[in-house]
């Protein structure tokens, strides 16, 4: 859960030091997508600091899993709003063509009037289809289609690439200060919520992405799908893949009823962006349309999402994970309390 090297960089934890995933990009030359020069994250411990943005903007990140119901949309919403809270401009694209839900999780379902399909058809402009969150004005949502409309897949992937280019060029033309708002600048992050499966929607969603966040749960069904999807992403040229292990239960790990995060990492061989503990507050926040990271006081899962967002900004990965809950060492610990 924590990056230990953040706290004391000069310590002798040699086994904890691991090369960032950005180094992997240079080890492969067969991949068609251009890679950005990695920036060394300077994550020194200090209060009231901001994470240092690594990589060239906009960072186009696809959140995918293969298996459904592992928390792709929840992760997109929470990491997106965490990034927005940290001051970065974020556009979240709900590329789940058939079953979109990101608007519900963000509480923006009543404000989605236009989608990408209407933009492609010339029924609205792109800026009209972007739904700005009123809580954090540097967060915008873009839905790819309405539930009953069909996406023309003939240029679906290309269309997403055009969208990314148009968003990138937005800051150049409008200048950001044209309407006096800072939200119309080029986004720092474009998060693409990928649909489950490896169907046409998946192919469309991964097209413009430069990096991927793979969501999985510690069970064998999700792991098999995650491995397959990782293989497809790597075949497509996306090499910067980090994973988030969701719905981790330390009590079950302790009882050896669930694979630990380290077991999952051993099976997939991917660097860890985060490990999100199972939290009942996730369901409540989903029902309220109020992402978990906005909760006050923050919950365990909300803190884990914030940490994952922080690592995403700095292109960092976890160096140590929470394994199990330690017994309390109180006065009554002798009696098993």
């Amino acid at each position, binding site marked *: 859960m924590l990056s230990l090297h953040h706290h004391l960089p000069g310590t002798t*934890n040699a086994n904890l030091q691991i090369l960032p995933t950005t180094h992997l990009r240079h080890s492969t030359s067969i991949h068609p997508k251009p890679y950005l020069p990695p920036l060394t994250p300077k994550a020194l411990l200090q209060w009231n600091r901001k994470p240092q943005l690594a990589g060239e903007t906009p960072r186009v990140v696809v959140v995918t899993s293969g298996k459904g119901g592992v928390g792709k949309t929840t992760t997109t919403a929470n990491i997106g709003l965490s990034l927005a809270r940290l001051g970065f401009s974020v556009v979240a694209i709900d590329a789940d063509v058939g079953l979109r839900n990101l608007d519900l999780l963000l509480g923006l379902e009543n404000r989605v009037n236009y989608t990408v399909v209407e933009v492609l058809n010339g029924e609205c402009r792109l800026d009209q289809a972007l739904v700005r969150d009123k809580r954090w004005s540097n967060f915008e949502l873009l839905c790819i289609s309405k539930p009953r*409309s069909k996406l023309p897949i003939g240029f679906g992937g290309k269309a997403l690439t055009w969208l990314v280019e148009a968003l990138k060029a937005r800051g150049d033309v409008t200048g950001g200060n044209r309407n006096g708002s800072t939200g119309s600048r080029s986004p720092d992050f474009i998060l693409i919520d990928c649909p489950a499966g490896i169907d046409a929607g998946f192919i469309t969603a991964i097209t413009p992405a430069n990096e991927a966040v793979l969501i999985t749960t510690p069970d064998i069904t999700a792991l098999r799908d995650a491995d397959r999807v990782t293989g497809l992403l790597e075949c497509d040229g996306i090499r910067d893949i980090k994973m988030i292990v969701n719905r981790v239960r330390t009590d079950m790990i302790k009882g050896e009823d669930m694979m630990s995060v380290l077991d999952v990492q051993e099976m997939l061989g991917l660097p860890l962006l985060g490990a999100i503990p199972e939290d009942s507050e996730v369901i409540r926040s989903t029902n309220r349309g109020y992402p978990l990271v906005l909760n006050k006081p923050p919950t365990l899962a909300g803190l884990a999402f914030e940490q994952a967002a922080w690592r995403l900004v700095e292109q960092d990965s976890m160096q140590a994970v929470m394994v199990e809950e330690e017994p309390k060492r109180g006065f009554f610990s002798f009696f098993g309390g």
Partner: protein
Amino acid sequence: MALASIWTVEFRLLSVHPCSPSSTTRTTRIHRFRITNGIPREVLTRTQQLKQHCITSVSQFHHQLVTSIPMPQFLVNRNIGSNLPIWVCVAVVVLVASLRRVFSRKKERPGSVADLVRRGQLRSDRRGISRDLKYEDPFDNPLVKVSKSKSSVEMCGKVYRLAPVTLTQEEQTVHQRRRSRAYQWKRPTVFLKEGDSVPPDVDPDTIRWIPANHPFVTTSTDIGEDFAHKNVNQKHGVPFRIQAEHEALQKKLEALQNEEELNKVVINPTNAKELERPFNSHAKSNDHAEKSSLNNQMKDPPFSKLENGPNHFESEPSSGEDQKS
């Protein structure tokens, strides 16, 4: 239990009368006065003794009853000074609970500004009621504390043991090679509907076959790729489809207006009034103007545009000239 408590309360209430000396003396005096009118003294003294006996027996019974039931110490002990802290605590608790309820009601008031902000209807940062996010380190804050030995972390009050990540770059490379062998995949670039013929010079591995009844994807589109690209890049002005529809309607309207039959038809202004759009701002003034214009129609043939309204066909040439100019 409830019944027993009720019984004890009743007994206590009954026992009040013999305990109060003033009330008993009054009643006995009244009885004496009345009885002494016609009854001899011996009888009177006997009855007096009997009464006294009854009273004493009842008071003894009451005393036994009270002493047999265990009472709380603070109720038995009537010394106010020693119980004062207890009563103060009780009062403070009640006061805090009531205040908390009042404040919680204020917070949860539906329709308030805070409620609207919470529901995302209002922007909090514009109203000055938002708390700026302090960019606290999410890895070291009051809710996340790492032990000095870095072997455990306390999150949200729970202490977890930490284990270091041992994945090396070599292991990652091994996994990548394994996957590259296991999953041979090429991105589909051509999407075909079932029944379509495979175009020449296309790698069959890059073809994705889409079922005709796919729920959310279609291979056919009524708009070209170039148009779609242009639409995505449009930043200002009216969207292409809206503009096209508007132009088509405009042409249709012009075509209708240019038809000779329509030009010959002179619509009675009273009927034309029904076809007009109800402009709220000018509705009354238009009515008034039309009445006056109808009255003056023969006298003063040239009408102003505003008075005639948009559907008045007699003023067609002038409006057409204005659109062109």
